[in-house]
């Protein structure tokens, strides 16, 4: 038997396997599962976008495009960033179209990190962040946040984590997995400390459109922050285009051009025909984005209320399509809870610790599934809590005071 370890990269071997993976293997083999474990919209891509893409194939748009993507698309992205976030990026030199927002993140870290540079990652966080930083030669530094503070990071927490090796801070608002949302004041406080310590911000804004209560502010729009921010966004969540793998990054020219250099050697460009569809999304997709958003907002309201009612305490998240209820009172770990719930009641959720240690004691429930499914899931979770002897009351509480 050959020892492959001798051939493999030490860094790659040492990466932690995704905590979601092993759960997926179990859940996907069971029948009659209601899944609240899905990190993507339950809508298919709006027809007009699909139609435009089919037409682009018929018209023969099958070649490479320019490395940063079609200029026409970058111009649309530029207008979109101005319209939505009041940010001005030059389509010629400050925007790049990538394979999902994931590739933008990868490019950002590879462009800015030298070996040993530290990146602060606000946890609970999306599963890829730490691995991307590590693979780019950096050192991920987790900054845990807590439910008592709506999983928002404080200036004091950042201050405590900053060292002279700190290069950047990675933000994700609205957040996967907590749904937590940073408002303008939160961002101003973070901007202050970023400037004080001369850091960069990598801002993952993939859920920006799915913000339900307040207006969205990009940290790049805070005075003095455009210069220090790499904004990452994409089509996956807002336009229900996850499988297309189409994202983009916007940054000041000196940063973006280095990202572009890496992009041209590794990827060349994003698929041509899909970029044509993305142009259509930005030109004519807004109304449908709004409809989907309204639908998520109503489901969010429902699930938060229903989970609190059956005794799973959960705060009202400002965005994305996740709720992150606490299961601490059950005495089970996140993984035990998720596993028992799956085996007993066939409801799949993701254990919170998959998103970092501070996610322990919580579970992530995606409400991007039909209301009927959500209602059934709530029923099953309620029954599960009862079987643990925990469901305190079934009586209806007054609506509106959560």
């Amino acid at each position, binding site marked *: 038997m050959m020892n492959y370890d001798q051939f493999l990269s030490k860094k790659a071997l040492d990466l932690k396997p995704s905590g*979601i993976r092993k*759960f997926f293997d179990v859940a996907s083999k069971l029948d009659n599962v209601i899944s609240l474990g*899905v990190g993507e919209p339950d809508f298919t891509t709006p027809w007009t976008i699909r139609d435009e893409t089919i037409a682009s194939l018929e018209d023969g748009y099958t070649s490479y495009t320019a490395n940063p993507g079609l200029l026409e698309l970058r111009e649309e992205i530029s207008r979109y960033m101005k319209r939505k976030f009041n940010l001005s990026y030059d389509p010629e030199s400050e925007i790049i179209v990538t394979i999902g927002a994931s590739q933008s993140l990868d490019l950002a870290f590879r462009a800015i990190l030298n070996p040993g540079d530290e990146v602060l990652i606000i946890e609970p966080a999306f599963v890829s962040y730490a691995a991307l930083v590590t693979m780019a030669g950096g050192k991920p530094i987790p900054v845990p946040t807590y439910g008592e503070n709506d999983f928002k990071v404080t200036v004091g927490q950042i201050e405590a984590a900053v060292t002279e090796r700190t290069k950047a801070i990675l933000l994700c608002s609205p957040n996967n997995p907590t749904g937590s949302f940073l408002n303008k004041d939160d961002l101003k406080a973070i901007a202050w400390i970023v400037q004080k310590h001369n850091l960069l911000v990598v801002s993952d804004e993939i859920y920006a459109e799915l913000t339900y209560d307040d207006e969205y502010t990009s940290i790049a729009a805070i005075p003095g922050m455009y210069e220090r921010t790499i904004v990452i966004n994409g089509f996956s969540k807002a336009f229900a285009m996850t499988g297309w793998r189409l994202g983009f990054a916007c940054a000041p020219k000196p940063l973006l051009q280095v990202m572009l250099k890496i992009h041209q050697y590794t990827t060349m460009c994003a698929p041509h025909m899909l970029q044509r569809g993305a142009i259509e999304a930005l030109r004519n997709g807004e109304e449908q984005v709004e409809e989907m958003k309204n639908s998520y907002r109503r489901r969010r*309201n*429902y699930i938060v*209320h229903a989970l609190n009612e059956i005794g799973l305490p959960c705060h009202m998240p400002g965005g994305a399509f996740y709720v992150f209820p606490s299961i601490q009172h059950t005495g089970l770990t996140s993984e035990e809870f998720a596993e028992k719930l799956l085996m007993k009641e066939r409801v799949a959720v993701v254990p919170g610790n998959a998103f970092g240690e501070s996610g322990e004691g919580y579970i992530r429930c995606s409400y991007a599934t039909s*209301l009927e499914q959500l*209602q059934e899931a709530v029923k099953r979770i309620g029954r599960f809590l009862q079987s643990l002897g925990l469901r305190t009351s079934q009586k209806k509480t007054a*609506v509106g005071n959560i």
Partner: protein
Amino acid sequence: MKLTEQEMELLAVLEENHRQSAETIAMQMQISPEQVNAMIKKLEEAKIIVSYPALIDWSKVDGREQVVAVIDVKVTPKRGVGFDEVAEKIYRYPEVRSVYLMSGTYDLSVTVEGKSMKDISRFVAKKLSTIDSVVSTTTHFMLKKYKHDGVIIEGKDDKDRRMVISP
């Protein structure tokens, strides 16, 4: 009538599915079930919510297959009442499912349902064309319903193709 944002949202919820309890709707809108019921009552009284019909595909029910025709009707409008009087005459027939006033080459679009083609031709010959102001009729028989009132009757399986768990 100018509606509040909440009333607009309620209409959107009901239009998608009106068979939800007031409690479920209340939870989605973050108001009380009593408020939901009061709003519904108000919208019903204002005839903004007109009715709650079920969309039934009768073609699947043995013995209840129906013949549907869409009839283009040209009429001479009457002084004072315009098209309203003749439209009313037509919509009073129970076999008439819908009547619309149209722009273009004809005036009224009338949908009629019957058990057979004979039924419908009898209706056109004996009832519709004998109305005074009706000038002419063109009858189109419907062969298949694909989509009705925004609902796809029998489309491709729009099943959930997502993985059970994803990050």
